């Protein structure tokens, strides 16, 4: 069953076409990598799916309903959650309040005593058990990423968009991060992840979509896509193909 479908999605910033006619589907339960060199339009695509940027052309549908005409809060209410390429914590709130903010403004809000229990469980899931009262701006980088993931998960998303969530982690943290995402996949959450860490892509994604200069250049099983000469050329240049 198709959960997310992008049809001919285009984003123009003035004269620059950042994403050009992007078309692909995500089946429910799939974990798909969205790859491509820097500036190829991956984050722009993610921003259009989450509603942060309006599409210039084309359409995005979630479970068959068009969402590309909606604002981010409506899209969030339909079950799309995301993390940001540069972590966006709510610095004046505590760790627990960061997660509460996601619980409180869901379509079916969770608040009060019920929220407290959920916050505890969500923080434990991402390895931040017992840190709810700590100020968010006192966390380390990896812990901020964990908190942002807990916040995204608090909405019980159908679709989770991860924008380079594993970037900047040391090898031990990377291992833990991959395990964490694997556990989400096992819970049935559909995941679209923008990622440069190839080990993680191989470990997590059954399928990959590759973009270059705003256009899709490959779409298929991870091992095939990563061996595709055109993909290698896009990443490493002409000599390596």
């Amino acid at each position: 069953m198709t959960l997310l479908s992008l049809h001919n999605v285009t984003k123009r910033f003035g004269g620059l076409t950042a994403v050009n006619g992007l078309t692909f589907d995500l089946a429910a339960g799939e974990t798909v990598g969205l790859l491509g060199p820097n500036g190829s339009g991956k984050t722009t695509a993610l921003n259009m799916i989450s509603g942060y940027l309006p599409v210039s052309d084309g359409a995005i549908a979630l479970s068959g309903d068009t969402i590309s005409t909606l604002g981010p809060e409506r899209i969030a209410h339909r079950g799309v959650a995301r993390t940001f390429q540069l972590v966006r914590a709510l610095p004046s709130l505590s760790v627990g309040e960061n997660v509460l903010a996601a619980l409180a403004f869901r379509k079916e809000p969770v608040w009060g005593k019920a929220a407290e229990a959920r916050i505890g469980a969500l923080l434990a899931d991402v390895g931040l058990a017992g840190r709810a009262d700590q100020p968010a701006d006192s966390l380390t980088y990896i812990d901020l990423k964990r908190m942002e993931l807990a916040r995204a998960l608090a909405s019980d998303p159908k679709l989770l968009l991860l924008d380079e969530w594993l970037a900047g982690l040391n090898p031990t943290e990377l291992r833990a991060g991959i395990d964490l995402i694997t556990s989400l996949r096992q819970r049935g959450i559909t995941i679209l992840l923008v990622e440069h860490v190839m080990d993680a892509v191989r470990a997590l994604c059954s399928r990959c979509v590759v973009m270059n200069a705003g256009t899709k250049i490959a779409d298929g099983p991870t091992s095939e896509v990563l061996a595709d000469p055109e993909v290698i050329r896009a990443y490493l240049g002409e000599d390596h193909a």
Partner: protein
Amino acid sequence: MMKLALALIALVALAFVPAFAGPYPLGLGIGILGYGVLATAWAMFSGPTRYISLATVAFFGLGAYTVAVLADVLPYPLVLVVAALVGLIVALIVGLATLRLAGIYFVIFTFGLTELVRQLVTYYEVNVTRTLGRYVFLPLEPEHIYWQLLALLAATLAIAFWVRRSRIGLALRVIGDDPVVASHLGVRITRTKLTLFSISCVIMTLAGAIQAPRWTYIEPSIVFNPTTSFLVVIMALLGGPNRLFGPLLGAVPLFLLFEWLSANFPNHYSIILGLLFIAIVFVLPNGVLAAGDSLWSRLTRKAVQS
């Protein structure tokens, strides 16, 4: 529970002040309550969102003018209801037009709005009614105004308390921290901001309406004086805009200082006020209470170490 009981005792005690205070202390009490209401209402919206509004006096003045215009026509309680409605309608219009602006643009717009309202009222009075000022004759003694303001302050603090504990209060803090994250978490940003902005503005309008009878004579330059807007911002910043009693605690010393300065340095007090404003923003960006807190934690930490 304990805190609620203390608050109620304080409220009852304050209600008896007119019984033994002379006219001058009672006048000071009215001023403090008036500014306490304005600063608390201002901080309710501007504290968490960090949208610095300079439109306080626009609403305050609209309230005063509504009373001046309608006092002879309608019974007084109804006049207050109409004033609240006027405040609400203007807040909704202004809110829809401005709340998409952020930062300095919002500040400038709200300042401009105040001037616009003042000029419109002046234009109307000069060209249509052919008078500039209006007299307000209502059979209200200073203690009646004091009690009304005390009740309004209690209601404002109760609303502020409720906002802080409710989802809408959290929504405002999330918006203040990062509107992009807020929208991605499902916060309806415009609706949230508009709701709180309107509540805050209606309270300001009522504060102006209640105090109108005290002046007897009002004109645009008195009730739309932009210094009031600035003073409210300094008061809230001094006490700490993100604490329930912060703005009120900021209003007490600053109002008294303002009174003393304007009595003793009538020509220079605005210079001193400006310097004070700068000093507060530089030295105590989070307010006196927060500064006290951090000093306290620094002292206790030192005590633990030694």
